């Protein structure tokens, strides 16, 4: 089934409307931050008199203006909306100017005089480790006795890996606008992945109950996790302005300020030891993982935990000891980003596997295969280190399919020939697997609701708790509702996500949007269909079980000579006083998780995929090109194929950016130097290989889990297919010399590759 994105025509015509583009109500105010020029400082005083004197300035918000709790922390309450005393990162807003338009607010913000006492700042993971600066106590996940197993192993390696962060670079920056309606309710329109949390935090900041706050989200111009919690402060500060000045207020961050103030994918640092046998089969790993949390906790604990339970990727490791710490630094607070720690965990696992292979002089492909999780073995090799079996394990079958489809072994031979003939230009090819756990690690988030109204003309309004950020969730929900109700998609209208339609929702995140909301929509539609079937049966002179609903028509099985319009059945139901509105609810079954032990069954199932990448590297410059990519990914029975392919391709390219050209750099004083697309480079069309083959994995059987219509979540897992690019680069670098290890920085910029080639050549010499 190939459907188009429900908003595609709106996108291409410019008619699709985003948060900041709705016609502004009369008197709309704009906000602009007064940003700290220090990463860590005491605020001694704020003098806003000059700013207030500017024509068009309505006021300047500081901490004392907050009527409720001055906090926007989603887990721990450690995140003042406007700091009263202490600046904790460079660019943090210590005050907000409110004015009649954005230009006036920005001009006036420059006139706010703030006196600071600068304090020493911690600006990266090594500095935080040296200072012992952490958020929360260490987290642990362990199985068996890793140190004993490493000591007993025939071979041992140890090493370190630093992994860079990543800016979300959603094309639409953070945006919200807020008005107080005639009844005193706070109406928020926000570009947020989590309207319920935005609602709760605005209520917290204003000191009012949640029932006085409504949060809507029409659509986002990209999210990628960057609007899961980090939309909240901007909605809150706009709400504060609307509350205080009694006029609607808007905020849309300029790009540089968005990049300076919002958190990113966590940079990580890993220190590892591994023990293995002559065949490269892992016996044990012992690992310290450090995540750079930034100034506040935000979502760092679950991000770190997901990293800790994804180090294994597709590999069985008998003995495991992982300790995780969140470094507290004076940087923007790092947050959710597609993969949510999974990529940072898996890159360490793949690093170890490659080290093992080169240490033994074995083919990395073979070493990967030898370490796969395998069902049905004795002793068991299909159990993760956190106590969950690898349900529906497709790794090996999918891997073999991709090796064949990509013609991997023959191409690798060609590459060896090519490399022998070229001194300054080397190619590399690599295949890597992906196994990614689907469900929120936090069990309570795995629930969803829907609200479906049928009107008497047969048209349908569909509300669900998920948000649309481009991933095609609304398109999938339309597919589910039309399939269950048996009506055309044209007759269904997906409404803007709103907390007064479906309350207490979870973030649209963790690749779970269509799994959770799809089941909730299906439940609501099942209820309605259950109510309509007897009505139709009566009209058609049959039994309710015989009624078929499809494409807006209704008939009895085997008697399609007599059909009714869906609208006729609906009208009859209304006349019979049958409710035409239903809620639906879903919670994922069978989940459990003990965060203290790091053990349980946190994921309903796993998504599987594999990728082959081929690169060419220039020895003079370290510049590489991606020659060909083959992806194979398991989406179960696709709900909407075009949407799933888009997620796979887009996720891969985003992961490739993280691993290659996207590099975050800060000054010695903690100022983000790469705060614009002129300095922070995400992939362009030229970075995408001309040969970019994407296939959906064709399964022999449907997945063993009961996901909506046997589909599988697809939002995050494909990002990690890009690890194949990193491993292909490593292969190419290795071809410049002879090395029993190839250290390659992440991201692998031309400079990083150039330096890696230097090391390999020095080693060969």
């Amino acid at each position, binding site marked *: 089934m190939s459907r188009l994105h429900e908003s595609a025509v709106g996108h291409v015509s410019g008619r699709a409307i985003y948060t900041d583009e709705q016609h502004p109500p009369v008197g709309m105010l704009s906000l602009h931050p007064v940003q700290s020029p220090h990463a860590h400082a005491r605020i001694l005083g704020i003098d806003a008199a000059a700013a207030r004197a500017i024509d068009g300035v309505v006021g300047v918000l500081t901490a004392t203006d907050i009527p409720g709790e001055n906090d926007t922390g989603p887990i721990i309450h450690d995140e003042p909306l406007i700091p009263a005393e202490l600046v904790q990162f460079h660019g943090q807003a210590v005050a907000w100017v409110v004015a009649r338009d954005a230009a006036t607010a920005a001009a006036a913000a420059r006139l706010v005089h703030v006196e600071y006492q600068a304090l020493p700042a911690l600006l990266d993971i090594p500095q935080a480790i040296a200072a012992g600066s952490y958020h929360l106590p260490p987290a642990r996940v362990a199985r068996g006795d890793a140190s004993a197993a490493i000591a007993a192993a025939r071979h041992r390696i140890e090493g370190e890996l630093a992994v860079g962060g990543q800016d979300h670079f959603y*094309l*639409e920056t953070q945006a919200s606008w807020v008005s107080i309606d005639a009844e005193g309710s706070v109406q928020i329109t926000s570009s947020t992945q989590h309207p319920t949390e935005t609602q709760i935090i605005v209520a917290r900041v204003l000191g009012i109950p949640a029932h006085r706050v409504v949060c809507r989200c029409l659509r986002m111009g990209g999210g990628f996790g960057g609007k899961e919690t980090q939309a909240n402060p901007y909605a809150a500060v706009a709400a504060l302005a609307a509350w205080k000045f009694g006029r609607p207020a808007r905020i849309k961050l300029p790009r540089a300020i968005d990049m300076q103030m919002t958190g990113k994918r966590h940079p990580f640092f890993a220190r590892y030891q591994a023990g293995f046998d002559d065949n490269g089969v892992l016996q044990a790993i012992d690992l310290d993982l450090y995540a750079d949390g930034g100034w506040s906790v935000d979502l760092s604990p679950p991000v770190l935990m997901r990293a800790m339970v994804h180090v294994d990727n597709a590999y069985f490791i008998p003995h495991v000891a992982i300790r995780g710490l969140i470094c507290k630094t004076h940087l923007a607070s790092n947050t959710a980003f597609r993969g949510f720690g999974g990529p940072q965990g898996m890159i360490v696992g793949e690093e170890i596997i490659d080290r093992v292979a080169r240490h033994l002089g074995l083919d990395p492909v073979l070493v990967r295969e030898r370490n796969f999780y395998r069902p049905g073995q004795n002793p068991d090799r299909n159990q993760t280190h956190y106590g969950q079996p690898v349900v529906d394990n497709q790794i090996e079958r999918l891997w073999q399919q991709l090796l064949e489809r990509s013609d991997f072994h023959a191409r690798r031979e060609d590459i060896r020939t090519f490399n022998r003939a070229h001194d300054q230009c080397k190619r590399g090819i690599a295949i890597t697997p992906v196994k990614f756990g689907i469900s929120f690690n936090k069990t309570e988030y795995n629930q969803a609701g829907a609200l479906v109204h049928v009107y008497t003309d047969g048209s349908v309004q569909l509300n669900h708790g998920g948000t649309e950020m481009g991933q095609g969730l609304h398109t999938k929900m339309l597919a589910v509702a039309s399939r269950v109700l048996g009506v055309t998609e044209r007759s269904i209208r997906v409404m803007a996500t709103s907390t007064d339609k479906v309350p207490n929702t979870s973030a649209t995140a963790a690749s779970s949007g269509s799994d959770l909301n799809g089941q909730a929509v299906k439940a609501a539609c099942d209820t309605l269909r259950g109510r309509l079937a007897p009505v139709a049966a009566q009209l058609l002179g049959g039994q309710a079980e015989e009624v078929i609903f499809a494409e807006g028509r209704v008939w009895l099985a085997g008697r399609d000579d007599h059909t009714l319009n869906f609208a006729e059945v609906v009208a009859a139901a209304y006349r019979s006083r049958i409710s035409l509105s239903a809620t639906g609810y879903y919670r994922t079954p069978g989940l459990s998780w003990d965060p203290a032990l790091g053990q349980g069954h946190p994921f309903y199932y796993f998504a599987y995929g594999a990728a082959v990448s081929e690169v060419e590297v220039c020895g003079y410059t370290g510049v590489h090109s991606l020659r060909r990519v083959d992806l194979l990914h398991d989406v179960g029975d696709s709900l909407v194929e075009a949407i799933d392919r888009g997620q796979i*391709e887009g996720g891969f390219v985003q992961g490739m950016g993280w691993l290659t050209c996207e590099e975050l750099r800060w000054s010695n004083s903690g100022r983000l130097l790469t705060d614009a697309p002129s300095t922070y*480079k995400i992939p362009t*069309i030229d970075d995408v290989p001309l040969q*970019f083959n994407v296939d959906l994995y064709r399964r022999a059987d449907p997945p063993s889990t009961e996901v909506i219509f046997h589909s599988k979540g697809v939002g995050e897992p494909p990002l990690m297919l890009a690890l194949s690019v990193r491993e292909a680069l490593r292969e190419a670098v290795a071809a410049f010399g002879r090395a029993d290890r190839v250290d390659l920085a992440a991201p692998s910029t031309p400079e990083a590759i150039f330096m890696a080639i230097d090391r390999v050549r020095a080693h060969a010499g």
Partner: protein
Amino acid sequence: MTNSPVFKLNFADVALDDAVPTESLLRWLNRRGMSGTKEGCADGDCGACTVALIERDGDGRAHFRACNSCLLPVGALPGREVITVEALADGAALHPVQTALVDCSGSQCGYCTPGFVMSLFAGYYGSELNDLTTEGNLCRCTGYRPIREATRQLTLIEPPRDRFHDLLAAPCVPLVSASVGNFHNPVAIEDALQLKQTHPDASWIAGATDLGVSLSHGQRVAPAFVALDRIASLREIEVTADHIRIGACAPLSELEEHLAGLVPALDQMLPWFAARQVRNRATFGGNLGSASPIGDLLPILLALDACIECRNLGGMRMIEAADFFLDYRKTARAEDELITAVVLPRRSGRMTAAYKVAKRQTDDISIVAAVFALECDDDQRVCHARLAYGGVAAIPMRAREVEGFLLGRKLDTDTIEQTSQRLRAAFQPLSDHRASAEYRSALCASLFERFVAEHTP
């Protein structure tokens, strides 16, 4: 000069009477509730704000040129014609460009999409439909594969004889001089020089791809502007047997078309210079005027012994490229002088090539740019050497000492090795967010090695 500045927006006349001339077209559109054109960065780097501007080349033919509306001051608009995304669909009937993107699933979040639509629109009528068409448009969702597919599909469909076709075919109405407030748009060099004399503190502004960034960020660049982008004589390109004269305000896209195959270093460097939207506006004159140490075209001028033609009301003079750059963003151009052309001598028998290394291989700023020109005599000894670099010093610079070393030597392994050593030490580059000094120094040498490997048997 006319009194009521007007431009054509989507076929309709719009008055610019009360416009702030330095406001960007993007902000101006958004303020009027035309929200199809998106702000993704306001820096000219993401392409979400792309619109199509009608430009006429030397022989009067009209083209749609994609450009970043965030960099286009409305003061430059009088008499011009602009098409935005809102004009493409005819009611419910989508334009072929839009249909192709819809059919190929070319949008996900949709925020970048209007920009892609407009880049493809310009490419569709201008017969450039490949990756270059949209290299200046960032998409964070799709991974570009479907956009590339939509582009390919468009190559199979002839542009219809629609109202856009008619617009291009309409008789040429030459732009006349106009002013919006203190933003002056003369049509003759003499008028420009007179304006500069009347407003000595005015800034020259060509394609506005550099100054436009400052303006977009609300910085006060100058109290007045003299815009050069409608002076026809500044856009002329002249090719003779012994030189090529490039008008200082010829957009780089036109150089790509008209000089293809004539100057290898230009052929190599131009596609690396920013992206299509910027090259449609950027000029040699602007690159020289802003004199950035990382201006990609500047090492070309140094390596090819170009001359820079400047004029003021007192007359014209030629400045050798080697004498033009004095210090960080300081040049030999006098404040009242206007750069009118660059002149590249044509010489046969020289090996020349341009290289650029950046973090990303399209639309990025150089870590190091290098342009080399070498000539050997009958005895295979170097008789002419130019090794010019950008990104390694406060100004674009030649490695003169190393050039001297090369003269009279054969390009054997020993010479190359010694040259490399000297090049590694030739400059004291900075470490910054783009790269380390160490890498920059290493590139100075290895790019030369690559040049020799690629150009000598």
